[in-house]
């Protein structure tokens, strides 16, 4: 049952018989047109070098209140994570299987209980986990965003249900802008996108009460991004 499909579409087609005037310029063609994103040039500019992009990601993370940490090696990233676990007295860390998450997990203290979600999970268990560790598709320098999908980051809930979201990413995953992030997804998933894609920019927040910023509205109160070579 699809409702009023035919009638609704017929009304749309009939309504569109007379063309509408434009109130905007279409002649505004960028100097360096891009096939997928012809508007790229008008967006906030991003430096060309990887270092400039790391700097911009760090600057945006600062504004967004994301903890961003450039780590010299996987071992350093694991140390950082262990320190966080100790500081906040974490009992359980939820995570998914992946090249980077597996490597980190091997280096963690056995006292920290691991909760892999790959074979399914109890919602209550995931909700009471102290943190969720995921990989990502890409990092976006322009906006300080982490692009996750249901395939790269352990499904839909792991990156939003626990109160602290940890992301581990390689330097090569840092992309300049949003247009590049969409291009990256289009190439990886030419044969079919994951059912869920999200651009995460900082920990969950709200300004609903007197427009005052509060972190941790419904999603994670903290977001940590660890960048490894």
């Amino acid at each position, binding site marked *: 049952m699809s*409702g009023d499909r035919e009638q609704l579409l017929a009304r749309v087609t009939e309504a*569109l018989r007379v063309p509408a005037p434009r109130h905007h310029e279409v002649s505004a063609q960028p100097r360096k047109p891009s096939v997928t994103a012809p508007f790229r040039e*008008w967006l906030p500019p991003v430096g060309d070098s990887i270092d400039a992009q790391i700097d911009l990601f760090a600057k945006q993370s600062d504004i967004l209140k994301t903890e961003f940490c450039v780590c010299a090696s996987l071992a350093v990233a694991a140390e950082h994570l262990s320190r966080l676990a100790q500081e906040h007295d974490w009992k359980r860390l939820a995570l998914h299987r992946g090249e980077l998450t597996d490597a980190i997990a091997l280096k963690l203290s056995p006292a920290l209980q691991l909760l892999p979600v790959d074979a399914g999970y109890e919602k209550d268990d995931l909700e009471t986990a102290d943190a969720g560790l995921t990989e990502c598709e890409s990092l976006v320098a322009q906006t300080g965003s982490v692009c996750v999908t249901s395939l790269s980051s352990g*499904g839909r809930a792991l990156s939003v*249900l626990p109160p602290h979201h940890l992301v581990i990413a390689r330097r090569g995953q840092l992309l300049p802008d949003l247009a590049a992030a969409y291009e990256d997804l289009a190439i990886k998933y030419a044969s079919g996108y994951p059912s869920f*894609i*999200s651009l995460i920019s900082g920990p969950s927040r*709200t300004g609903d009460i007197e427009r005052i910023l509060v972190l941790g509205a*419904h999603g994670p109160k903290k977001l940590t991004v660890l960048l490894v070579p």
Partner: protein
Amino acid sequence: MISEVQPSDLFNTDADRTTADQSRRAAVRKALGNYKNARGKSESAFASWSHARDAAATIKYEGVNHLDKYLREFEEKFTARGGKVFWASTSAQAREYVINLARERSVKSIVKSKAMTSEEIHLNEALEKEGYGVVESDLGEFIQQLLHEPPYHFVFPCMHLKREEISSLFERELGSPKTDSPEELTMIARRFMRRHYIAADMGISGANFIVAETGMISITENEGNARLTTALPKIHVALIGIEKIVPKLADLALLLPMLATAGTGQHLTCYNSMYGGPRQPGEIDGPEEFHVVLLDNHRTRLLADPEQRDALHCIRCGACLNVCPIFKNIGGHAYGTTYQGPIGSVITPHLRGLQDWKHLSGASSLCGACTEACPVKIDIHHHLLHNRRNAAEERKIWWERLIWFGYVELMKRPWAFKLALRLAPLGQRFHSLVLGTPFDPVGRWTKTRDFPEASPQSFHDYWQNRKAEAQ
């Protein structure tokens, strides 16, 4: 929602009342002052905001002006991934579909993230009437739900409330302790809501964009409540107006930062999530079923008006409300509409009847701040004029016609015009007899302003005398 009172009468009394509420107005002004600063900063980060506006308008123009093609494309792609599309001509059809679905799947509990379409069709009331409990999960919407009040602003639902009022509300409704900390209040809602995400078997959401190319919907939010609503329950229903279409996924690389900038002054909203179907084979979680309800509810009436079709380009950022001098003074509730502010005044007469809602076109100073603030370049303030013209053409008012007829006859005869000028000061002496009474013909003006005194000498006479004196 049937009321005997005319919307225009209700508007007049409500606007009078809310305009007199100085403390409420101060709270709204303060909130909007912060917005203005943040937006300015975020806008200036763009290499060219004005070119970006043209590019965004180009995308929405393409989508809306080929809506039939793109809706078909969306349906095909979305259905191929296991999603179900329901086409609703009316709000009643949309409501029935959701209620029947809840009944067929024996749904016990429903959690909902922000959807203005659901306010538009009064979905919560309908579900509650059928015995289904619905919890609004967006903090602002949750507060408004507890207050039994519609949202004040379609982006900032409870911007008019002070923390003391929210604290008392939570104390009364949730039994939480008194606090004046926005953070503590947010945590009370967070704790309350968590149980609902886990228990709910149906999640209802709206959407900011429909992507034709990939068969996805895109939801923009800061809190994470929409992500939880669409991750945990086994059924996801999204209720979306048909005009939300964009042709390509990569179009969002422009529209998402523009929506954030114009909406809240952020560079990018915290979560921008794209959903292309229910849980797919090989995925860990996600709903088993994903239904998209495409809602017309008279949008095609607006679509059929080429002059105002661009009003359907709206991405509901709320920028036009935030800069509107009328909104700042009368507030969101006085409009009596689902969509408040300038854009609401433009589209409501199309969605709910021109004659009943034409008074909103007068609730404007025509300053054009809305048009300037619009990220997709909708010609908002001219559309208010178009609505005024259309309303007057559709139903001519006899006494207005009589006045204009008299005016034309007067202006055609110089002697009559001169005579009228001479008589004006005389006639004005009688004005004081009715001033302040319901019989004052210009009572709407004199209620808040002085009526200027007619000069005993016309400019024409003055000029002639001056010339005579000079000679």
